[in-house]
């Protein structure tokens, strides 16, 4: 069966359509940001504003994250510029008890589910305030309280894990849905395949959100796969696949909402392709000018999801320039305060190196910890001789 959410007939992903949005993508907002009443979601003003504020907060956090990295105050950063509609639109359609298995480019997800900025900044710095004790690189968040699964670098490992979590909810007879996020490049990895294979075989309550930002670092999506559309990959696993304008938060919300409903109703998994363009560098160590297509970039710049949503809200009379200024200021202050506070915190204790490897330290780890403590007492300090991270 197919989703009601439908675009026009398929358009191949080629260099030729790199400017405009693919015809087959579902949309609510037109290019000049008029909502199609037939598909416009019935969302309250508060709900709409919450979504908008979340998108802005995410953008502001990314701006600051990149700045902190340039200033050498954090080691690395992965921005999500241009993808705010995808993280916010999908998050808005999930319950707090639903599981989320994210990749490293979804800050909006975390903010929407109630993670506070300070916790995120502590992760970026890797200090004592970081839940993960500075063990992982920046942006590799983990928030058990919000059922936001620990992010790891290896691409797409989370996809099958989300399916496993869904299998567990089936086994336990619960109704939670699991959503997992990955990129266009991620669809080529082993665990995209095992994930969708298992989901199709067990009809699990899982939603697969593919952010097709058309690049995997420097590799364009038309070199990544021969498929006409990422959404078409669903067919081979026996599940519906649908493409949506990833720069239209309303379209993303509507699509996600329906996929989540299907999953919760026991109708099985869905693959959602959110088409967008990565507007920033791959990460703070990447130089996109080496490979980026300027024409394509300029075309998508005009489709900024925050500006488009703002116009919609203004049109509805829900939003004004005054509110905008206020919001921008608040969002910025929230981040600045968090940074200020986080920067006062100590790095993790060297003892933290030995915790959480196992439920209890092994004799080997106890010996290694003792040896390291003795070494510290002997030599006093440990000099930081690390090189900068190149990617």
């Amino acid at each position, binding site marked *: 069966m197919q989703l009601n959410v439908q675009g026009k007939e398929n358009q191949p992903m080629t260099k030729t359509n790199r400017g405009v949005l693919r015809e087959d993508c579902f949309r609510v907002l037109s290019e000049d940001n008029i909502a199609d009443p037939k598909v416009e979601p019935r969302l309250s003003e508060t709900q709409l504003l919450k979504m908008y504020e979340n998108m802005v907060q995410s953008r502001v956090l990314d701006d600051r994250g990149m700045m902190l990295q340039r200033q050498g105050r954090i080691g690395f950063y992965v921005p999500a510029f241009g993808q705010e509609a995808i993280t916010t639109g999908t998050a808005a359609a999930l319950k707090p008890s639903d599981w989320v298995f994210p990749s490293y480019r979804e800050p909006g997800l975390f903010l929407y589910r109630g993670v506070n900025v300070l916790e995120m900044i502590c992760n970026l710095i890797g200090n004592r305030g970081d839940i*993960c004790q500075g063990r992982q690189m920046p942006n590799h968040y983990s928030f058990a309280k919000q059922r936001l699964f*620990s992010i790891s670098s290896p691409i797409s490992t989370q996809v*099958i894990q989300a399916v*496993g979590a869904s299998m567990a909810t089936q086994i*336990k007879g619960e109704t939670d849905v699991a959503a997992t996020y990955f990129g266009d490049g991620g669809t080529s990895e082993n665990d995209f395949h095992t994930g969708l*294979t298992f989901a199709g*075989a067990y009809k699990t309550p899982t939603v697969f959100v593919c952010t097709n930002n058309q690049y995997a670092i420097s590799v364009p999506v038309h070199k990544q796969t021969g498929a006409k559309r990422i959404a078409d990959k669903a067919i081979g696993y026996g599940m519906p696949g649908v493409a949506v304008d990833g720069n239209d938060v309303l379209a993303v919300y509507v699509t996600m909402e329906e996929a989540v409903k299907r999953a919760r109703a026991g109708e099985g998994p869905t693959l959602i392709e959110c088409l967008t363009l990565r507007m920033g560098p791959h990460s703070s160590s990447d130089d996109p000018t080496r490979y980026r297509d300027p024409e394509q970039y300029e075309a998508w710049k005009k489709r900024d999801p925050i500006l488009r949503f703002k116009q919609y809200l203004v049109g509805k009379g829900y939003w004004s320039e005054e509110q905008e200024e206020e919001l921008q200021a608040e969002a910025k202050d929230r981040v600045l305060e968090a940074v200020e506070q986080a920067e006062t915190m100590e790095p993790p204790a060297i003892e933290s190196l030995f915790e959480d490897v196992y439920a209890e330290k092994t004799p080997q780890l106890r010996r290694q910890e003792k040896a390291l403590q003795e070494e510290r007492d002997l030599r006093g300090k440990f000099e930081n001789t690390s090189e900068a991270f190149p990617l």
Partner: protein
Amino acid sequence: MANLTLVQAVRDALYTEMKNDSRVVLLGEDVGLNGGVFRATEGLQKEFGEKRVLDTPLAESGIIGAAVGMAVNGLRPVPEIQFLDFIYPAFDQIVSEVAKIRYRSGGGFTCPMVIRSPSGGGIRGGHYHSQSSEAYFAHTPGLKVVIPSNPYDAKGLLISSMRCDDPVLFLEPKKIYRSVKGEVPEDSYTVELGKAQVVREGKDVTVICWGALVWECLKAAELCAPRGAECEVIDLRTLVPLDEETILESVRKTGRVVVVQEAPRTCGFGAEVSALIAEEAVLSLEAPIVRVAGLDTPFPYTLEHVYMPDAERVALAVGKVMNF
């Protein structure tokens, strides 16, 4: 007490703990209706239903990756990898995910699971149904590695593993799946992880081994005794965390060591045992630490019995350290 084979003891442990803990679920290729290709899960799907014993698609990375999600969501998955040789498609999930989830999430998420897999040679399985790759996993912090050598330990160690809050790779020496029988209590019991067992005492040479080769080493001890060499045979049972005390105590007593492994020699787990002794008990050594190991080649088919260490080869090594 029942007299069970090793594979029956494995099944018994699964049955016993599934009765005791509803969070325990089994998944893998052919583990359901077919009861597993070695029959380790015989009848369990009938007993516990398709929700707790799942036949999976043919994808090890999927099996382990799904088990991760299950563990994170409150279950106690026991994935079976049909042969240890087929665990490699899941290597990324095991090394990058299973082993690191507790650490990287600051304990926010944990990943308790028991990855069961038949390992080792001795059934004429050739390249891909014979390997002993425990060293890969012993070198991966965050995992525990367990390998029983008899039915009693198999049941007790497997129940301990299923109750352990850490991920455990539970290796089942398939050569002795059926050829070794023993008394196994019907009810539930545990054998503590991380404790080796001195399976034969002796004053002259310490022979360190695990899995199926424990029996070859015991035979070797029989061969050596009349030749005037009393072997102390240690069955490690758990490779990670290693019971260093039991090893070192014995070596300090005997001063002579033979380490026996089935895996290719270079960088196998036997190297870790030798290195430990060379670092912690070098003064006690009266002879070189001799390793008896598989060849640094892929595992052969026709000449399997030439490739695999056996009692005579171990006995020759014992002779070597005695006459040094």
